[in-house]
Structure formats: structure tokens, C-alpha cells
């Protein structure tokens, strides 16, 4: 009798367990993470959360082959190369034969004119928060980073002098120059001839295709008819400035979708913090395997973990600190250690805006810091020697990280493992602090705000670690740790309001220039946020090397240039890497089709959803 009962119990248990392991809602994939998209306008986005959504809504001219960084055609039917004659004039002319029969989500049919509109719209909009600056840099042969700069060079007057706060030309002369700029400079860059879309670069720029390939949201092709019908740029020379550098919220594409990608936007529900996408059945490559994608913002890790365990989320963002939480769960798959083209760094603003609420009194009186606190090399050294890097990697990211000398990931051209890394040495840190600001810092102390994006526990703990060590050096030193929501965080860093903050950089394209230019160039995405004094330094010592190296075709010469650059960075405590993260994918085992990619937004922890399914 007892035996029978035991067998019955085992059968019931097995039945229960198999019921739990059954695939929950096979037509829907739910991804839970703590980041919320900043915008869905491809020309205004430059963050992981936005990019991860945009990647499903839009397609690009070319794409990567699987996990590699080799190219294959997408909306273009061929990849331009010198061999096929589509890359000409010493790398200055790219020809893309455009695919026929591709349908946008609106029902409109893709034509080469859409590609032309896309590039011109992106150029002229040049949203200061977006990544179009990469394309501007490439097409101008590295000469310009913003359309405003390009306009100034063309017109001999600053853009801000030509257009007033109400987006109106300041004079008839200014208006004529603005119109002329489009007609004479921008329009000839992007041309349609028959079925071909042609880019006429001002000068050669080797990484151009890497900048516009799939996974680069800013290279997304948009539906020109939809845009114009919805109040976007009317494609006229007269008036383009009305759409220039708007806030993302002003764009018709901010919460909409004008793409031809495998999924179409169902809703971006800001109240419930989720984005819902539905399969586009007329997708030119055939419908995706899964009907619905849902990206949820769930700030609390315990909630995300519980959702995954219950099967209400199929994959979740897990910080490396929780790497081993799922080891004993047979329903969860954990893949880790794959490379990530990313560096996480501690940033120090050399000149924070005087209006920033994060600098306290704004003086060296123990209740704040001066806006130019970090211009002193000793302050930077004091911070960088007070950081316990090994503890961060071993304890905080559970070994899922590597130290790198400068803000360049291992494996990229110019990476030199023989370069020194900063030591965690409180003696050296103390010496530097004593010398900082002629001894004034040591005498008066300071109150410094160390910021991170709320929800990122690794960055939070790193800031707290820094607080402990810095405050242990001198009781007059105070570090206040402050978590800020992602969109606000990006905005605050962009507006040069943050004195010290931790943020990472994921490669936009697999080339050292993407890191060196971004971090250190006076016009780089992070470089320019460090403020005026940094810009002066960069213009004198760093920009000349970065600008020449990107055009250099001799690899060995390029490596030499980057070695020289990194020497300056280390000597001046300008390189500020904490570690290079490694990938961690955590998902239900029923989710299939994951392959990591270095360049895909969240590509180390989410699949390419077009190929993903549940079984």
C-alpha cells in the first residue's frame, strides 16, 4: 500500500513539474529589464534600451552575417566593395542597389527615394542626443561632427546666429545661406540614380559601412511618405531648420514607427512601462517566428527574477552580481563569458555647468565642488587610485569582467595589454589629494555627487565603494551616491550637469575609432560633455592623433598612433576605465535562437528576436 502511494506521489510530482515546465504563451516573448527607451526616433536614439526596440521595427541597407562582423545585403541587394565596383573613387563613392518589393508597415513600398530622404532627414535633424553625428563624421570624411559646424564652415556664420530660438532665420541673408547649404552641400551627398542610392563622401572614411549596418539604429531606413504625412520634414530646402535639433519628444517618430522591420509597434505604454510589438506579416524576409514581443521595464531585480521563475518573463536582465542565482533552476538557461564590445568607465566632468544641482555650493568649502574641480590632474589621480578594481571584478561582477588600460575593449585595433593599469593604492590617492588645488582640497574637503543610472546595482555599488575609500582618506571628504533614472541620467550627462558618473559605452561599430573618438575627441559623444577646459586640452593633444589615425590605411602606422594617444591618456589620468564587461544571458530554456553579437543593442543577453521562438 505504501509503495503504491509512493508511486502515485511520484507521478503527481512529475505531472506537476512537467506542467510548470510547459511553454507559457508560445506566441509571445516577454523581455524584462530596468532600462526604458528614451525615444523610438532612429535619428534621435543612442541608448541600448531604445536601440533594442528600434532593431525590431526597422531595417538597414546591409547587415552582419550571423555572429560575425562580415556584411551581407539587406535593403541593398549588394554590399559595396571595390571588387564589385560599388565602392569607387578611393572609398569616396558608395553605390547601393535598392531591393524591390519591400513594404513598410504603413503599406507604402520602399523606393531609393526613401533612402535618400532617410539620410537627408537624419543629417538635417541632427538631434544632439542622437548618433547621426557618426554618419556626419563619416560622410564629411571626419571633418565635421554636427550639421551646425558644417553649416558654419559653408556660410561663414554660426548656426545659432542664423536661426533664432523660435527656429526662424535671423535675416534674409541667413535664410538664403540656410537654403543654399541644403542645395549645395547636403543634397549632392545623397543621390538617387535609377534603382541605386549613392553616397558621395567628402573624403574616405574606412568604417562607414560599420556605421550604417543593421544594429546601428541611426542607419534605419524610414518611410518618407509616412514621415511627411505626419508632420516631419517636408523635404524642402526652405525650412529644414524647423526640424533641426529638436527634442526627441517633438518628433513624430518619437512614439511611432515608420519602418519595414520584422515587427511593428503596437504600443509604447509609458504608464505601464512597456513596449509591445506585433509581427509584421508582410515582412520582406518572411514573417518572424513569434507573434508578439513585449519589452517591460521592471526596476526591481527581485521582481524580474520572480517573473522569470514563474515564466511570466522569458528573459530578464540580470546584473553579474546575481550570476549564480539560477544555477539550481533546471528551467533557466544561463550563458556567460562571451565577449562584449563595451567598456564601463568612471567619468569626470572637467567643467560642469554652473547651474548644475549636483555640485552643491559650487565652491571648495566642504559643501560642494567647483564646476572645474576635475581640471586638476591630482583630483583625477585621487579618484582613480582610490578605486578597488579587482574587488569590483571579483565580487561585484562575479568575474564577468576584465581590466583594460584605456577605454578600449580587448581585441580592438590598438589594444595593448602591456600598457599599465591604474593601481588601487590609497597611499598614492592620498598623495594626489594633498597636492590637489594647491592643498585647498585637503584643507577644506568637498562634497561630491557620484551618479549612476537607477537600477544598475553594479554601478551603484561601485559608487558606494568609491565613497567608502575616498571618505576614508580624509574625514572632510564626502561622496554622495545618487541614482537617477536612465532618460534623466542621459539628459543630465548630455547637458554637462554631472561631476562624476559611471556609464558604459557599447561599440557602434567594431573599430578603435569608435571608442577613442567617443571618449576623448573634443567633439566626441562623451568627450564634449567634459566641458570647455577638456575640449581645449583635447584639441591640442588628442584630436590631431584621432583625426589622422581614422584616415590612415596602414594598420601598423595606425597602431603606432593609438599607442602614442594612449600614452598621453594614461599620463594625464584621462583614460578612466573600470572594466570591460563580459556577457550574461539569462532566459527560460524554452526560448530558442539566441546567438550573441558584439554590436547588437543588448546583443549579449537578448536574441535577435526575428529568429527567436519558444518551444
Amino acid at each position: 500500500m505504501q509503495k503504491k502511494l509512493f508511486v502515485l506521489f511520484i507521478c503527481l510530482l512529475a505531472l506537476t513539474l512537467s506542467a510548470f515546465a510547459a511553454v507559457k504563451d508560445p506566441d509571445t516573448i516577454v523581455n524584462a529589464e530596468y532600462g526604458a527607451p528614451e525615444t523610438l526616433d532612429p535619428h534621435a536614439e543612442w541608448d541600448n534600451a531604445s536601440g533594442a526596440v528600434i532593431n525590431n521595427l526597422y531595417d538597414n541597407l546591409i547587415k552582419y552575417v550571423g555572429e560575425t562582423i562580415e556584411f551581407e545585403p539587406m535593403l541593398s541587394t549588394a554590399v559595396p566593395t571595390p571588387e564589385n565596383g560599388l565602392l569607387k573613387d578611393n572609398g569616396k563613392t558608395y553605390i547601393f542597389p535598392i531591393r524591390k518589393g519591400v513594404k513598410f508597415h504603413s503599406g507604402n513600398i520602399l523606393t531609393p527615394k526613401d533612402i535618400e530622404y532617410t539620410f537627408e532627414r537624419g543629417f538635417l535633424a541632427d538631434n544632439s542626443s542622437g548618433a547621426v553625428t557618426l554618419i556626419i563624421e563619416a560622410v564629411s570624411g571626419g571633418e565635421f561632427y554636427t550639421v551646425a559646424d558644417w553649416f558654419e564652415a559653408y556660410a561663414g556664420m554660426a548656426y545659432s546666429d542664423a536661426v533664432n530660438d523660435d527656429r526662424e532665420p535671423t535675416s534674409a541673408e541667413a535664410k538664403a545661406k540656410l537654403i543654399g547649404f541644403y542645395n549645395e552641400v547636403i543634397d549632392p551627398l545623397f543621390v538617387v540614380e535609377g534603382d541605386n542610392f549613392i553616397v558621395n563622401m567628402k573624403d574616405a572614411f574606412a568604417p562607414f559601412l560599420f556605421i550604417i549596418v543593421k544594429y546601428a539604429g541611426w542607419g534605419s531606413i524610414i518611410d518618407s511618405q509616412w514621415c511627411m504625412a505626419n508632420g516631419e520634414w517636408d523635404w524642402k530646402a526652405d525650412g529644414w531648420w524647423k526640424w533641426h535639433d529638436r527634442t526627441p519628444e517633438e518628433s513624430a517618430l518619437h512614439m511611432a514607427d515608420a519602418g519595414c522591420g520584422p515587427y511593428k509597434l503596437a504600443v509604447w505604454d509609458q504608464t505601464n512601462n512597456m513596449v509591445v510589438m506585433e509581427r509584421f506579416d508582410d515582412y520582406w524576409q518572411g514573417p518572424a517566428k513569434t507573434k508578439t514581443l513585449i519589452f517591460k521595464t521592471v526596476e526591481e531585480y527581485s521582481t524580474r527574477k520572480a517573473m522569470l521563475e514563474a515564466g511570466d518573463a522569458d528573459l530578464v536582465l540580470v546584473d553579474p552580481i546575481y550570476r549564480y542565482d539560477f544555477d539550481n533552476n533546471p528551467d533557466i538557461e544561463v550563458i556567460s563569458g562571451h565577449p562584449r564590445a563595451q567598456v564601463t568607465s568612471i567619468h569626470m566632468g572637467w567643467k560642469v555647468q554652473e547651474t548644475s544641482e549636483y555640485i552643491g555650493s559650487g565652491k571648495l568649502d566642504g559643501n560642494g565642488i567647483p564646476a572645474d574641480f576635475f581640471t586638476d590632474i591630482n583630483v583625477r589621480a585621487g579618484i582613480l587610485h582610490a578605486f578597488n578594481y579587482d574587488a569590483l571584478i571579483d565580487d561585484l561582477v562575479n568575474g564577468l569582467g576584465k581590466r583594460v588600460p584605456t577605454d578600449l575593449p580587448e581585441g580592438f585595433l590598438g589594444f595593448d595589454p602591456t600598457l599599465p593599469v591604474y593601481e588601487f593604492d590609497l597611499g598614492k590617492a592620498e598623495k594626489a589629494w594633498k597636492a590637489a588645488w594647491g592643498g585647498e582640497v585637503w584643507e577644506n574637503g568637498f562634497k561630491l555627487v557620484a551618479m549612476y543610472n537607477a537600477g544598475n546595482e553594479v554601478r551603484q555599488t561601485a559608487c558606494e565603494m568609491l565613497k567608502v575609500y575616498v571618505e576614508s582618506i580624509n574625514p572632510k571628504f564626502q561622496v554622495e551616491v545618487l541614482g537617477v533614472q536612465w532618460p534623466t541620467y542621459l539628459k543630465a550627462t548630455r547637458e554637462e550637469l554631472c561631476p562624476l558618473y559611471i556609464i558604459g559605452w557599447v561599440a557602434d561599430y567594431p573599430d578603435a575609432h569608435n571608442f577613442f573618438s567617443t571618449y576623448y575627441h573634443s567633439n566626441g559623444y562623451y568627450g564634449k560633455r567634459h566641458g570647455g577646459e577638456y575640449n581645449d586640452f583635447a584639441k591640442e593633444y588628442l584630436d590631431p592623433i584621432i583625426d589622422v589615425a581614422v584616415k590612415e590605411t596602414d594598420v601598423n602606422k595606425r597602431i603606432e598612433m593609438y599607442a602614442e594617444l594612449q600614452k598621453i591618456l594614461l599620463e594625464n589620468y584621462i583614460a578612466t576605465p573600470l572594466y570591460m564587461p563580459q556577457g550574461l544571458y539569462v532566459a527560460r530554456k524554452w526560448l530558442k535562437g539566441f546567438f550573441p553579437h558584439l554590436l547588437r543593442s543588448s546583443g549579449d543577453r537578448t536574441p535577435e528576436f526575428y529568429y527567436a521562438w519558444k518551444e
Partner: protein
Amino acid sequence: MLAFIVRRLLILPIILIGVTLLIFSMIWMLGPERLIGTYVKSPEALKSEKAVERLIQKYGLDRPAPEMYVKWLGNVLKGDFGYSNVGRQGVLQSIMELIPYTFELALYALIPVVFVGIWLGVIAGSHQDKPLDHGIRIFAIIGWSLPDYVFGLLVLLVFYSYLKWFPPGFLSDASMKVMREGPWKDITHFVTIDAILNWRFDILWDAIRHLIAPLLTLSYLWWAYILRITRSSMLEVLRKDYVRTARAKGLSEKVVINKHVKRNALIPVATVSGGMIVQLFAGTVIVETIFARPGLGRFTATAAVTLDYFSVIGAALFFSLILIVTNLIVDISYALIDPRIRLS
């Protein structure tokens, strides 16, 4: 009674003006340079020479405080509370959109908090120093001592991770799809009521499943409070002469408790219950975050963390309004329970 209500209503605008003055002072103390940040969205706008001065003049940020107050009050009266970075729309629109979610949670929480709290308090009070009293008090002390985020996570762990009964969030994805694509009509914006009005009992059940864990978290922490007040008030009333007289007249203990003790013992409970609505609103900050629910609490917390001034001020003004109106209702109900109040 009418005169009492009218008198209190006449005081209302004065209190609101006081609140706006206080809140405005907070804005004004930020100084004109910091306030520019709330008007300028593009950093490029601050790069040109004298941009700061120009913008201060443009938005009148250097005007005398009284003039700025009148202007700000004018904007507020017109419904312009500024732009919310957290809500990605106007502050008022954000608050209006989120009110139903938090109201629904807080109001539903009030029911178990008050009724279970009173019930436990009455039992404890009428069984003073007996094992039942001790047991209830230990239960209450544990609730009162537990931080809400710890208890919330415990509830999540037990009722969701292990039992898989009550999921986090507001509704299941399937229900939200119905609400998004129809057939569905938002009538009251309270999903439980709308579900009934839309004749969608599947969504009603779904909403209840998502409400139970947050309600349990909010309630348990406040049961202790109501219980203790009810119990001590019961003990005080039980010692009154008229209770002794009632017992001497031979009335049963049940009649004594229900007719003579409870009603008088509940006066202080009514007073704190009104204020508790605001406390429950405050409690939603943690609960909404842990259970990933949309709402005003989560919005306010996010705004505070991100120094989104306009959102914080808008939310503060809203909470003040709730507090004032609630106090008014409490005073009226107090007068209803205790006739001596309206006579005085």
C-alpha cells in the same frame, strides 16, 4: 452641520493658497539659473554667449518673487504645472493619468486596513491580557516592525515565486491587449469597476489577482496601527461609568460592546483613518515599485530621485489637496459620530 461644512469649505482656499505659497517658495529658492534647466531642453541653447542671461529675461525668472508667484499661480490655475521628464508629458497630464491606478490601490487597501484593524482591535480590547489579546498584539507588532519593502518582497516570494498565485504588474499581457485593442471602454478608469461595466469578469479576476499581493503588503503594515488605537480606545471606554451601568442593568457583554463601547471607541479611529488615506498613498511608493505597478507613488519617487522639480512640486500639490480634502471629510464624519463636535 451645514454651517460647519460651509465654514470648513471657506477655509479651504486659504489653506490651498498657503500650500502653493510654500511650494512656490521651494521653486523660487532654486534660483533663476537652475530654473532655466526646466525650460531649455537643448544644451546647445546654453552654449552661446550670454545665453543664460537671455533666457532668464525671456522667461522672467529674474522678476520679483511676488510677481513670479502670481505668474506661477496663474499657470497652475490654467493647469500648466510644467513638463514632467519622468512622465514625458505635462505634469498634470501625468498625474491625471496615474491617479486612478494609485487611488484604486489605496482605496481598496483602506477597506481591509480599517475593518480588519478594528475587528482585531475590538477582539484584543475585549480580551485584555488573555492569550488572544497577546497573540493579536504580537501579530501587530511584527507588522508594525517590518519595513514595507522587506514584507513586500516576502509576499512576492511566497505568493508569486513559490505559489504562483498573485503575479506582479497591473494586469496580465492578455488583459492589457484587450484594454488596448478592445472591445473595452474606460469609464471610471478603475480597472476593477470598468471590468464589471464592460462585462469582462475575466479581466476583473485578473485585476484582483494582481491587486491581492500589494493590498496584503499595504494592509498588514497598517493593521497594527488601527488595531492598537482601537484596542486602547476600547479599554478606555470599557472603564467608563456608563459601561459599568450597562453591565449593571444586566445587558449581555455582546450588547455592551456593540452598542455602548464600539461607537465611542471608534471616534479616534475615524480621525486617523482619514489621514491614513494619505499614508496609504505614501505606502504605494514602495509597493508600486516592488510589484511593478504603475501609479503616482512610483512616479513621485522616480521624480524625487531624478530631481524632476516640476513633477515633484505637482505631486506635492496634489498630495496636499488630498490631505486637505480628506481632513475635511474626517472632520465631517467626526461630527457625525460625535454630536458634541457640531454643537461646539
